[in-house]
């Protein structure tokens, strides 16, 4: 099993795929988080009834397979809107909204976890809504939300394995390409799994650590 036809060239090829996985993840998580915070705050601010349309739309992203979202977005952008978008653009757009949908829930949970009395105290000191948000709610909500957010970011990285359908060659796809040439499925798959594992595990552990630390005070 350890004598492999894998060359340095192939490793670079795999690394490129890994780079693509990371790139897609970083872009999507960054945009998705900004949108998610926006949506989450809007939801809390409007209340359940007024925010119902937004809730509905975000819920759709959590109720349809990502694969279908990608295929549909791709088909819609190209066939219906006739936009010339690269696969990477479509992948990042879909994944960003997908991230935002989950992130909005996390943000909402975080904000809800800040006791109303603490916010009242801030407002009664003369702080504006924005100052209350900035100096009181955000730091406190972050403690509640960060561990789940780390979980979400890792989830997005793993889900980014599906963007192959819009012709983005990320880590798993690169692995499949090499399997085609080298015919060493088990070895290559283990290599690929190890890579995901190596990025995920420390971050996941860090999230667990934060959760433990912050839940104590």
């Amino acid at each position, binding site marked *: 099993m350890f004598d492999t036809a894998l060359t340095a060239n192939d490793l670079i090829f795999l690394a490129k795929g890994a780079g693509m996985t990371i790139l897609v993840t970083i872009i999507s998580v960054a945009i998705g988080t900004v949108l998610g915070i926006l949506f989450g705050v809007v939801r809390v601010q409007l209340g359940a009834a007024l925010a119902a349309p937004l809730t509905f739309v975000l819920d*759709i992203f959590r109720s349809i397979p990502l694969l*279908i979202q990608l295929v549909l977005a791709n088909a819609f952008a190209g066939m219906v809107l*006739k936009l010339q978008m690269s696969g990477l653009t479509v992948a990042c757009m879909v994944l960003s909204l997908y991230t935002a949908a989950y992130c909005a829930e996390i943000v909402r949970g975080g904000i809800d976890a800040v006791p109303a009395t603490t916010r009242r105290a801030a407002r009664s000191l003369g702080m504006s809504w924005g100052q209350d948000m900035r100096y009181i709610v955000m730091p406190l909500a972050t403690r509640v939300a960060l561990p789940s957010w780390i979980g979400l970011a890792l989830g997005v990285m793993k889900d980014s394995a*599906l963007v192959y359908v819009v012709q983005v060659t990320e880590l798993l796809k690169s692995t499949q390409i090499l399997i085609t040439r080298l015919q060493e*499925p088990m070895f290559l798959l*283990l290599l690929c799994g190890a890579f*995901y594992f190596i990025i995920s595990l420390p971050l996941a552990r860090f999230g667990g650590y934060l959760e433990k630390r912050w839940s104590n005070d």
Partner: protein
Amino acid sequence: MFDYTFQWKQAMAKLPQMLDGAVVTMEVAVLSMVIGILLAVVLTLLRLSGSRPLAAIATTWVEIARNTPALFQIYMAHFGVASFGIHFSPFVSLLIGITFNNAGYLAENFRGALKAIPETQTRAGRSLGMSQLQAFRYIILPQMLRIAFLPMTNQMVWAILMTSLGVTVGMNTDLYGVTQDLNALTFRTFELFAIAAVIFYVITKIITLGARLLAARLFRY
């Protein structure tokens, strides 16, 4: 801009085939949940067993399930293990992949739920003369399942969504597989997948709603 002509009629004619696919999707999801829950209970017990090797096996399972893509797990269940001459049909491969994933995530949820149940509950059971297993079965487990019910519902929804990954291991009888086959024949990509999306959405809504009703019935306390 919208000079694309939608052909809904042609696509809608395929609805019966797609609904058949939805049934298969449900089969995979439900089976993977039932087996996944049982395995998760076992994994949880192993992690509590105090035996280091057993706990290590369980922990490895959980960590791999949670830290690699579901697609990877399914691909591995089909092409990976076949390197050792073990062959599973697409249906079974998909089922194994999703079940592996479910069990890992659920075991983690169960562990969290267990932490929330006071130690005195076991004590109360034991002091009534129950064995360790009886105390777990009749006192801890029901409470654990209640606390983990919402995460379990979410996992069920994910299981449904994950069935779409079956195409990578040659599955073509589930909803996604059927849709993809139809797409290959007609190339009405947008219409077909839009219908599939609606079906998926409806299924997940029925499940979350059903779970809510079930919870109201099961957990009257």
